[in-house]
């Protein structure tokens, strides 16, 4: 297994963990308010659709699209996704944007589901739809990452396995503790994955266009190091520009730097 494959699997695993935590919050809110059967059916249906999408889009991409064109395309997608995750991470870490708060999202979703007093039979359609939409929408970004990273290196199987492992682990922990995973340092994971996606994106855009990076695949860890340093510098600079209340909160933030929104 090459270093590029290991980094690819770590990136997919991290991205999938973040999205799975977000999806789990919605499924738990749906399950506890509208019944577990519908929530589980909605979740299973969404996972099947996402799996079919990976097979239906990913496999033809690998077999029929020229590798260089594919690398530019997926590199461009990864760049947009990675830079946008990094931008959010910098704004959140420097106090310019509220942190992603699973507790607040859980409470909000529960309240919204409880307000709807529709007739609840053995199958609750609202519970099904909320769980399906939550898992499907959170999963779409993961599908794009799995297809992009997997197809560009012809490692669709490895990328899918890393994504599936993340879903299984997050679900198992969620079921074990029976609540939303607000303690997961989601913002930190998102920062790390953003750095990886940006690095992969830039690497593949270059390779696809005909630029040969020094050291070939070894350029990826170097790019990761560069973007990690840039992110740290950007956060430090932006912190000095943070509004006064946010700056005082930054001092008492935990490991995740979670700031009450």
């Amino acid at each position, binding site marked *: 297994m090459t270093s590029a494959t290991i980094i690819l699997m770590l990136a997919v695993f991290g991205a999938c963990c973040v999205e799975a935590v977000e999806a789990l919050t919605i499924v738990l809110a749906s399950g506890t308010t509208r019944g577990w059967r519908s929530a589980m059916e909605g979740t299973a249906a969404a996972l099947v659709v996402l799996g079919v999408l990976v097979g239906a889009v990913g496999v033809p991409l690998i077999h029929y699209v020229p590798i260089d064109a594919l690398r*530019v395309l997926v*590199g*461009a997608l990864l*760049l*947009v*996704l990675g*830079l*946008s995750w*990094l*931008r959010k991470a*910098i*704004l959140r870490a*420097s106090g*310019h*944007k509220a942190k992603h708060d699973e507790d607040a999202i859980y409470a909000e979703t529960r309240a919204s589901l409880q307000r709807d007093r529709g007739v609840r039979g053995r199958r609750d359609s609202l519970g099904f739809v909320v769980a399906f939409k939550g898992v499907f929408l959170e999963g*779409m*970004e993961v599908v*794009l990452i799995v297809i992009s990273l997997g197809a560009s290196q012809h490692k669709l199987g490895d990328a899918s396995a890393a994504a599936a492992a993340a879903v299984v682990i997050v679900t198992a922990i969620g079921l074990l503790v029976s609540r939303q995973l607000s303690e997961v340092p989601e913002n930190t994971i998102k920062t790390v994955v953003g750095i990886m996606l*940006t690095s992969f994106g*830039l690497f593949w*855009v*270059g390779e*696809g*266009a*005909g*630029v*040969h*990076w*020094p050291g070939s695949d070894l*350029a990826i860890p170097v*790019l990761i190091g*560069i*973007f990690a340093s*840039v992110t740290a510098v*950007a956060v430090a600079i*932006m912190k000095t*520009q943070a*509004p006064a209340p946010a700056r005082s909160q930054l001092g008492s933030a935990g490991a995740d730097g979670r700031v009450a929104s």
Partner: protein
Amino acid sequence: MTETLVRWTKAFGHFWWDFLVGDTPELFVAMLVLVGVAFALRHDRVAAVVILPLLAIVALFASAWRGRVRTQKRAAKEEA
């Protein structure tokens, strides 16, 4: 049937618009510029490996700075 198809097409288009452009059109433009520069510099390896990361860094800083300004403007508006 047609109505459903239109609704699905609109949702599909909306998803891609949100994903690629959303509230950060500058990052979409930066991606296009990076792809263009990569092709333009494909025969000049040294320039490409220096300029491509630099451009991505500039785009990231510019977008984060724009986000900061927008947040501050929104906060000022709410205060007023």
